[in-house]
């Protein structure tokens, strides 16, 4: 039998109810792994094993009485440190919030607590979710469990690494331009960016408000469906949250792909893809055809401008969202002779280089005299991209692309070159701009590193995404684990 920490969450849910294992045993298995590899992988900023043990104990007690503890009970979870957790410090991987302890739970955290949340810790990330490698953490980088010399992706790199390394069974991430899907792809996991508005953003520390979404990072599609069903749904505290009935995502997994119309945007299959990524994606498309789907190339002409538009809109919103970190009310304060000096010193020493770069970009883009040329223009591009997708979804049920042009790159490889780092999100960013859902599933290996396949769907059509992903997952039979003997053990 596989070790407990490598089980899927849904397997553990069933085992716990059959009383084959206890929640404490599951947690002990994860804890053992943490003790062994956390020093090398560095998935977490803050560990909450005490609270996890309490939750596991409570789950066992309920199960012992034959009562239902909730689907998250006893399943060790990593929660990205951008989600507010009452009483547990929430740093956003930034010095400026190094000792910040929230007084409230994010809505997703509160919902999971209602379902028995067993949180192992707060996962590492790029500072304020800005980055694609988790190297921009003020607390040091996370490493990819497949190869410790490589990045786990970002910004939800800690969440993905924890699940891949067996330091958690599943995780929550957040995705503004690919921050769930890209690390899921780099770590051989499933990651879903829900439709904008499906999952509450209340308590998700804002990076770019019109793009941010919380979503699952899991070992398989079923876990993804299960976790999504626990966090999705309207929240009166979030005005952008959609008032919709949440479908049963688990039953959506049933079915096949016969007659499914699959579009492949040519813009996302251009140069820049490594041969291994290209062949893995083409292999998956052939599989889909073989299963009865109609696969066809298509074109979304404005996707070529997505990256440019994104790097105006996201920094613009970020420049405003991050203004509140000023040393006045909470977080880091570095004293100065007067208020302005205090502001300057606090922010100069509290924020890292990438955050400062984006604040400056965004401030510039919103400045009088430049607003129309930058922010205004970017919003127009965004509208055109929305239109492109709308048109494509008239002809296709889903669109498919690589999640990333390359597998995980080496630590330090792109740190000095922000533009090449930004390019690693070229396939994922259009999805956030359009507000549509997308899932990344592993579809093969290149040089022993996982390759991710991205499936994009219509607004609120997570059910179709999950079904296609589940069918492909079964057909691909991807059961790889982080390679032993490359440092992790």
């Amino acid at each position: 039998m596989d070790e407990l920490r490598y089980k899927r969450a849904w397997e553990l849910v069933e085992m716990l109810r059959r009383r084959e294992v206890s929640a404490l045993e599951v947690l002990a298995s994860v804890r053992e792994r943490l003790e062994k590899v956390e020093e090398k992988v560095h998935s977490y900023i803050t560990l909450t094993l005490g609270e996890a043990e309490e939750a596991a104990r409570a789950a066992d007690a309920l199960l012992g009485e034959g009562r239902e503890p909730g689907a998250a009970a006893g399943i060790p979870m990593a929660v990205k440190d951008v989600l507010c957790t009452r009483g547990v410090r929430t740093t956003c991987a930034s010095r400026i919030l190094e000792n910040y302890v929230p007084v409230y739970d994010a809505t997703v955290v509160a919902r999971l607590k209602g379902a028995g949340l067993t949180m192992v810790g707060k996962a590492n990330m790029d500072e304020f979710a800005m980055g694609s490698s988790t190297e921009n953490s003020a607390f040091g980088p996370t490493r990819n469990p497949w190869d410790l010399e490589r990045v786990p992706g970002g910004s939800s790199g800690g969440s993905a690494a924890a699940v891949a390394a067996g330091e958690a069974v599943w995780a929550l991430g957040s995705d503004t331009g690919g921050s769930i899907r890209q690390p899921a792809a780099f770590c051989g996991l499933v990651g879903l960016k829900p439709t904008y508005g499906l999952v509450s953003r209340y308590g998700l520390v804002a990076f770019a408000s019109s793009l941010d979404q919380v979503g699952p990072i899991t070992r398989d599609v079923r876990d993804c469906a299960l976790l999504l069903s626990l966090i999705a749904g309207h929240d009166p505290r979030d005005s952008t949250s959609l008032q919709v009935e949440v479908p049963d995502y688990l039953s959506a997994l049933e079915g096949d792909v016969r007659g499914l119309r699959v579009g492949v945007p040519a813009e996302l299959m251009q140069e820049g893809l490594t041969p291994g990524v290209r062949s893995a994606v083409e292999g998956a498309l052939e599989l889909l055809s073989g299963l009865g789907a109609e696969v066809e190339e298509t074109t979304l002409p404005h996707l070529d401008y997505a990256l440019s538009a994104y790097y105006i809109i996201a920094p613009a919103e970020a420049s405003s969202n991050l203004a509140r970190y000023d040393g006045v009310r909470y977080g880091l304060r570095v004293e100065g002779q007067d208020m302005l000096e205090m502001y300057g010193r606090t922010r100069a020493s509290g924020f890292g280089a990438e955050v400062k770069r984006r604040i400056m970009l965004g401030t510039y883009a919103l400045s009088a005299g430049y607003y129309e040329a930058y922010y205004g223009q970017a919003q127009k591009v965004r509208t055109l991209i929305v239109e492109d997708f709308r048109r494509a979804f008239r002809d296709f049920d889903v669109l498919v692309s690589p999640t990333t042009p390359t597998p995980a790159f080496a630590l330090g490889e792109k740190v000095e070159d922000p533009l090449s780092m930004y390019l690693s999100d070229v396939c994922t960013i259009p999805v956030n701009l359009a507000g549509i859902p997308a899932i990344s599933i592993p579809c093969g290996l290149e040089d022993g590193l996982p390759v991710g396949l991205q499936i994009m769907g219509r607004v609120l059509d997570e059910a179709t995404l999950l079904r296609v992903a589940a069918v492909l997952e079964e057909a691909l039979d991807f059961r790889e684990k982080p390679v032993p003997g490359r440092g992790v053990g």
Partner: protein
Amino acid sequence: MMGGYEAVIGLEIHAELKTHSKMFCSCDASFGGEPNTKTCPVCLGLPGVLPVLNRRAVELATRLALALNCTIAPRCVFHRKNYFYPDMPKNYQISQYDLPLGVHGHLDLETEEGTIRVGITRVHLEEDTGKTVHVSESGRIHGSEYSLEDFNRAGVPLLEIVTEPDMRTPEQARLFMQELKSIMEHLEVSDCKMEEGSLRCDANVSLRPVGSGELGVKTEVKNMNSFRALYRALDYEIRRQRELLESGGEVVQETRHWDADANVTTPLRTKEYAYDYRYFPEPDLVPLELDREFVEGVRASLPELPADRRQRFREAYGLPPHDAALLTSSKAMGDYFEAVVSAGAPPKAASNWMMGELSAYLNARQVEIEEVRVTPAQLAELIGMVEKGTVSVTMAKGVFQEMLESGRDPRSIVEEKGATQISDQGELEALVEEVVRENPKVVEDFRGGKDKALGFLVGQVMRKTGGRANPQLVNELLLKKLGGAPGG
């Protein structure tokens, strides 16, 4: 008229809306309270929080916008106004920018120069900020050791009303504010208490040669926290600009601070750069769509406005325009008047009492009519007693003073007094002597030419007799005692 120049005045008004909860969270929006007790993660701008719009605030804003004859935007958008200030928790204010709630309105004013129409450029919704207290001997930021923040007001819904530069005199500006305040009171959208900061006003002032169609360089005058301050600040600023222009100087575009103690406006010490607020649409809120049904529903629910009430007071009660204007200058005043009339008092008599004795009392004590202890029914009763000849007008005035002090019924006061006046010369002379002896300073003032001093002395005698002394007689006796007219 001022030597060839005319003033051009526009106002920017902020009024706190009378909602139970704040603009974007459920915190108590009422005034006062221990610092930072009316706060929550949302209005403190903690990481991760999101705003949720208060529907009531939208309704109240729509009411005012309609009363000011504005067009209501079917779709309006909130923007973020970005600037750093310690009393603003998020370092941006959620406000409205190019798509405000109401536009293109107007308000007609009856002024000495005739009826003028003041254009309303816009009416929009935004959130208030907190309050900074600078801890130093002077209470000013310069030299303060540290500052304290109170976020109780942070997030309270604010209405911003911007007028066209359609006013020409300080009096017109004062009238506009008075009328606007009265409208807001009638609509019950704001408490309109300038001293508590629930109604605030800044003015843009410029001068131009009479007949010119162009606008001169303007200054923005801030910190006027009463109608009187508004009038005096504008009066000062117009004089200052005129003197500058007439002596060949130029007006500098700047923000000036009204210093009520020194009676001057002074330039605000700010950095030499223009603020760039980097407005952009608030991504945490969806655009506000106000459909016709909602707008028409609000329109249908609008109460009688001051202008209509004024006309009704003239027509239904036969009041002269001056009376009607004064009695509708605040909602409470008009309500009081109508209550006195409906309790049986003849309208004109009710008006006379309110504009005379009652207003004098309000002014002297600096109190609001809501705080007066005499009920409309009691005033009506007193008026009835005068009408019937039960008491003389002079007597009634004394009784009214006692009613104001004690809140007692006029009938019981009159009965207690036995309705008798003390006209016994001997008794009064003794009292006059006593008062003169007790108030040497006042006596000296009187002899030095101060008319008012006599009134004070009469009042003292009246007090000693519980108001029963015949004031006419006291007056005569005092003059005799003090040796004739003042200064004489």
